């Protein structure tokens, strides 16, 4: 007998162990697949229904349409049960009321607002975060504590007053109201400050020796180093603007009066995509009440986000695990 005995499992024990392992795997994968189906069904249903002929959609059993995939193939060849009509309707429909009901317009508005507000947010946040991270000044900690404390306060409290302020300063139905009012975010300042603080001080001293001032240092050294964080913030901000509903619905539900944009004089709707989606398709007067058209609208609103997600998956997931916000 050796001094140190090595324990070998018997074949039977090994077999039991392996069986348990397999059972565990089956359970885990089964569970995950079930949840995955639960998550994916609405998306699949959305895509299939959006291509469905409205009359066929009404007549057919929803389950039949959804599950019998081979039928899809036959249908599309033999009968016009799958069409692009729903999408065409969404983009080309013009309302009778003179108010142009036009998803292309909502798209343009949303793209413009989200792009400009993202640039604005990043510019202000980077500067403010730089001041908090790199500079020493009187009252810094007090100011930062006050800003952090406001993160606890529900946004509705600010919206109540801002709604009145916007009316008073004549920003109703303007892009300014959509871009500037809720453009500066304390959370982004806080998030960027943390990244900036991780940049070693030696870099600043080296830059100083090279004759860089504070702002040149920010532009040439800090921003390139912090660019992943800035990209994350840009993505979160874009997503927030894309999904904005409450604020545009309050201050931009009318039409734009000024005519500087694209030479439009009147009837330039200020709605963003979410507003269009919520208000048009639930309104029976517009004639867009049909479920398939509405779902096509949903696809159109969701698709750019999906594309965006596929491209920037890493940054989105990293940013969101820290933020907990949803626009």
């Amino acid at each position, binding site marked *: 007998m050796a001094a140190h005995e090595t324990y070998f499992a018997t074949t039977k024990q090994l077999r039991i162990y392996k069986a348990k392992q397999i059972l565990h795997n089956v359970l885990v994968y089964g569970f995950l697949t079930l949840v995955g189906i639960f998550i994916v069904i609405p998306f699949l249903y959305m895509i299939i229904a959006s291509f469905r002929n409205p009359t066929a959609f009404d007549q057919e059993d929803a389950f039949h349409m959804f599950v019998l995939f081979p039928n899809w193939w036959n249908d599309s060849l033999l009968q016009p049960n799958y069409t692009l009509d729903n999408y065409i309707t969404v983009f080309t429909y013009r309302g009778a009321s003179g108010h142009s009901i036009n998803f292309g317009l909502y798209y343009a508005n949303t793209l413009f607002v989200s792009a400009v507000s993202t640039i604005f947010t990043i510019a202000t946040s980077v500067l403010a975060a730089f001041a908090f991270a790199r500079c020493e000044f009187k009252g810094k900690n007090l100011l930062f504590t006050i800003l952090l404390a406001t993160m606890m306060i529900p946004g509705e409290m600010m919206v109540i007053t801002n709604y009145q302020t916007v009316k008073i300063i004549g920003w109703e139905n303007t892009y300014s109201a959509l871009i500037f009012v809720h453009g500066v975010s304390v959370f982004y300042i806080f998030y960027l400050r943390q990244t900036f603080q991780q940049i070693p001080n030696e870099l600043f001293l080296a830059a100083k020796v090279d004759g860089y001032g*504070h702002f040149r240092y920010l532009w040439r050294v800090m921003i390139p180093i912090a660019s992943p964080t800035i990209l994350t913030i840009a993505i979160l901000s874009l997503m927030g603007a894309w999904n904005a509903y409450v604020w545009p619905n309050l201050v931009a539900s009318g039409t734009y009066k000024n005519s500087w944009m694209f030479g439009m004089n009147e009837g330039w709707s200020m709605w963003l995509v979410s507003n269009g989606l919520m208000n048009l398709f639930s309104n029976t007067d517009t004639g867009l009440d049909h479920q398939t058209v509405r779902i096509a609208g949903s696809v159109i609103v969701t698709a750019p986000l999906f594309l965006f997600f596929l491209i920037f998956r890493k940054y989105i997931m990293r940013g969101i695990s820290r933020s907990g916000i949803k626009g």
Partner: protein
Amino acid sequence: MSLAATSPRANFKENIRYAFSRPTPAMEREHEEMVLRSTLSVKRASRFRVGEAGKAWIALIPALIFLTFFMIYPIINSFLMSFFEKFTFVGGTNTSFVITNVIAALQNSRVKDPVFGFGNYVNVLNDNLFTKALGNTALMVVFSVPLTIIIGLLIAVALYSIKPLQGFFQTVFFLPYVTNTIALGMVFQTIFSRGGLFNAMFGLGDVAWIDVTANRWSMFFVLVVYAIWNGLAFKILVFMSGLASIDRQYYDAARIDGAKRSTILRRITIPLLSPQILYITITSFIGAFKAYTEVMSIFGGNNDFGGTTKQEWITVVGYIYTYIDSAPDRAAAGSMVLLVIILLITLVQMVVSKKRVHY
């Protein structure tokens, strides 16, 4: 010049310890900047320079202007507004800011009828619609939040224990996060319509889930399902990042001791995940208390909260936005109540978790 020489210590022993201790970042910075200052002093003196504090304020000004105007001032103003009964624009429309109205109202209250007080709060708390909104929101929170957290935790643990297909599943579970709440709410509306997928899939026939004629609790079921579907992604993501930060040694030790999987989950994973669980609990309780667009998108329309009255499942935020135009003082009082609830939730969870959370 050593650092020790710049700050003499009382006794020799401390002096030695000071000299050999690692300098703190603040000391290093001070030292380096002193050296720099001496080398750059000629250049610095030659031209006018804005000091560091001045530059900081220049950098802060853009953000501060907007934050003061659209965040700090609104908080103060809404707070004040909630204490003025029958608040109106006494300063006239389009001419003055709301705060001047507050001042005018305050002067009014001294002269004429006392409008300053807790009247709005009394009105709001006695308003049946508000108590209904409060009850509705509380019900949704109590059902959806714990369910979402438990399911999310289970998914994260299961997902973390597998290797093949982990990335695929993670991406799939994350999808609901990058969608538009309203767009997918409308898809759920179609799925739960009378001829919709849900009835067809489970062979339920013609059950009304969200129609105006539907039962209150079947509407609630749809709301909770949508809340879970919508909320899982974020929880899984946070739990996954928490799991990744747990030292594998604990699991190896437990496995050598022959611990069961359930024991490992109960004794290692959950205690070590407690900071993430606390974070998720607080954020999701607060988030769920602010439910608004998700409810409307299920019932399909602006300010439509279901039922024949369109107020069946109105939420607290829904109440605030219902009155934002007609009675801003009432809306402000409602938002103050929401603030108090949020602070209470945070406080209670902080106190309760103090003993249970391991950092």
